[in-house]
């Protein structure tokens, strides 16, 4: 008797979405469980649209999305129960404190109150928000708001954590604590997908990297695999990224 292969954290097949023009055009993507996956691409490539469809915030025109084997389009509530979404603008209520916000999120995910309260205490301590637990979020810096939102995303113990530009606008210290938090999730066996324009972050943190452009997956693999496929061995991810996403710019550089 052989073990069946583990379910991928995310499997996307033939995903398509058109607004004024096609944004996603038949995207196929598979992300294995237990890794930090960076989804890169130039502005307007369709990264955020893809992840919003995975999170259940937009409906695709065509294609399928499975999260740990759950069909996210047919059974969205089951898929949402194991997923967390963290956009670049934190989804907070300015007049609630972090603790009150976490209580509301726990209520939405129908968590056991006692367990949720314990998790909230743990997360607030871990993210260095304990002192501000009763302070309304309206006066918080962008970094602090992002940490509160991260606590909200983690409180229900999601199997898949999706973050859209999580480090934009954070200072070095805040960015470090968010990165540490994400790495800790992966170490605990969870799957994390991030989009970022900060290629250095992807280079240092990601187990695998996907590069998306024109609504399709242009390249995917570890950093070394990407360099190899782009013919940029020994060069930075930035060089690899530019070569894969903008051949014209590469041609100019070469000239």
């Amino acid at each position, binding site marked *: 008797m052989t073990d069946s292969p583990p379910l991928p954290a995310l499997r996307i097949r033939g995903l398509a979405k058109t607004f004024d023009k096609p944004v996603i055009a038949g995207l196929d993507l598979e992300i294995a469980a237990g890794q930090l996956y960076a989804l890169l691409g130039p502005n307007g490539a369709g990264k955020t649209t893809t992840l919003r469809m995975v999170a259940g915030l937009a409906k695709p025109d065509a294609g399928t999305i499975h999260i740990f084997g759950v069909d996210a389009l047919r059974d969205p509530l089951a898929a949402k129960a194991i997923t967390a979404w963290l956009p670049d603008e934190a989804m907070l*209520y300015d007049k609630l404190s972090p603790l009150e916000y976490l209580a*509301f*999120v726990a*209520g*939405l*995910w129908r968590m056991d*109150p006692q367990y*949720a309260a314990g998790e909230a205490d743990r997360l607030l301590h871990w993210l260095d928000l304990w002192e501000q637990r009763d*302070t309304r979020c309206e*006066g918080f810096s962008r970094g602090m708001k992002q940490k509160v939102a991260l606590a909200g995303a983690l409180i229900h113990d999601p199997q898949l954590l999706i973050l859209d530009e999580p480090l934009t606008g954070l200072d070095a210290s805040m960015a470090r604590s968010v990165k540490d938090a994400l790495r800790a999730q992966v170490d605990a066996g969870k799957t994390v997908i991030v989009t970022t324009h900060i290629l250095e972050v992807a280079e240092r943190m990601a187990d695998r990297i996907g590069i998306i452009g024109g609504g399709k997956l242009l390249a995917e693999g570890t950093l070394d695999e990407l360099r190899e496929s782009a013919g940029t061995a020994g060069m930075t991810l930035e060089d690899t990224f530019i070569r894969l996403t903008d051949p014209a710019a590469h041609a100019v550089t070469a000239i």
Partner: protein
Amino acid sequence: MRGAGAGATQIIGALLALAWLALGCTIAWALRDTPLPILPEVRVAVLGISIAALTFMTAQAMIGSQRTLYENGDLALLFSAPIPERTVLLAKLLGIAGTIALTYTMLLLPIIVPVAILGHPRLFGLVALLAAIALAAAAIGLALTLTIATLIGPRAARTVGQILAALVGGAVFLGSQLLSHADRRGGATIALFERLRADGLGTEGLSGLPGQAGFGDPLAIVLLLGGALFLFVGAGATLQRLFLSGYQDGSTRLSRSKPTGRASGRLFHARLTRAVFAKEWRLLVRDPALAFQIVLRLVYMAPLLFVAFGRGNALPVPAVLAFGSVLIASQLVGSFAWLAVSAEDSPDLLAVAPVAKDEIDVAKLLAAFAMAAPFAMLLPIAIALQTPVGAVITLIMTALGGAAAGFVELKLGKPGQRRTFARRRSGGFVAGILSLLIAVVFGGGAALGVWLVSGFTGMLRFS
């Protein structure tokens, strides 16, 4: 779709403005050879309207000042540009004056200007009077806002300004309703005018200036417009330091940092409804100005109650109370539901949660019910003293009316940032009409039911 809707609204607005102007031109043509006698009563009326307009505009200017200071976000750019601070302040003040005068301008000028052009040039004085009131109100509104902000902080200034504006609006409306209601009983308005005229108010001295300026007295125009300009420029010259510090305070002191010290476990609830209610309740009580505005909506239902309780009305009191109960419940539940939906800061959080939208809607409706319940229960309790069966009928109809009004708001409301909520209230026009219809239908049903029950009980007693 949205663009098409906005385009249609603009076209309808332009057509209405043209129709209004055409009406003004027709009136002007009809009056072109008719002398307009300026009676003392008219001067008293001009004084009264000027005071009311100044009060209204000052309240609006306070809100405009708060938006300029704490919400618009263009002050950083203006203050960083090579423009003197005084110029920035005067430009902003002029913007506030223009905004607060806009409604009055749209209503008055298309009528007044054609009449003035076609044979009654003295009426240009009303334009000068309007400009003077707007300039003075802008200066006073900004000065009040900055003074309150300096004394008790920008957060309190914002709340106080919003509550004052709501109070002024409600008081003027209620006053006008009381006057017109009393007038039907015994000419109270005329008596008041006679009294004011006898005292010389509105016709002589300083109090006579608005009436004189409004009808073209050059000296009165110079005095009023000059005084308003003096206030306006004086505000620009003297308030710039306070304005700058008010702006800087706004970005640093608007948040509350006092810990509540509550035990964390008590905040967590197992049921979705409780979690939603707790969140909505906290957001409401932490925005007193908004809560106040909602409760103040009851004031705007006063005319219906005046009609119901008016002299010669044959309806028994319990039936009127039953109608009032449904009216209050439908308005309040509708308002709270509208608030819960339309002032939702994080619609995406709800969308990514493993909860069906209908469940969230029901939870929000229940939260709205719970918030309105203390007000909605008062009249059924009063009815129960006279007819317990009638009270039960009222309660049922109140619940149905409230649920229907809340449901309408849930279906028609669109989520948006809470801080921009006050400006988006006009979007609920259709919902407002529907909720009024609901109140009339269910309220009428309740009144009829209670009236029948009261009559039946009366017959039993009689037999």
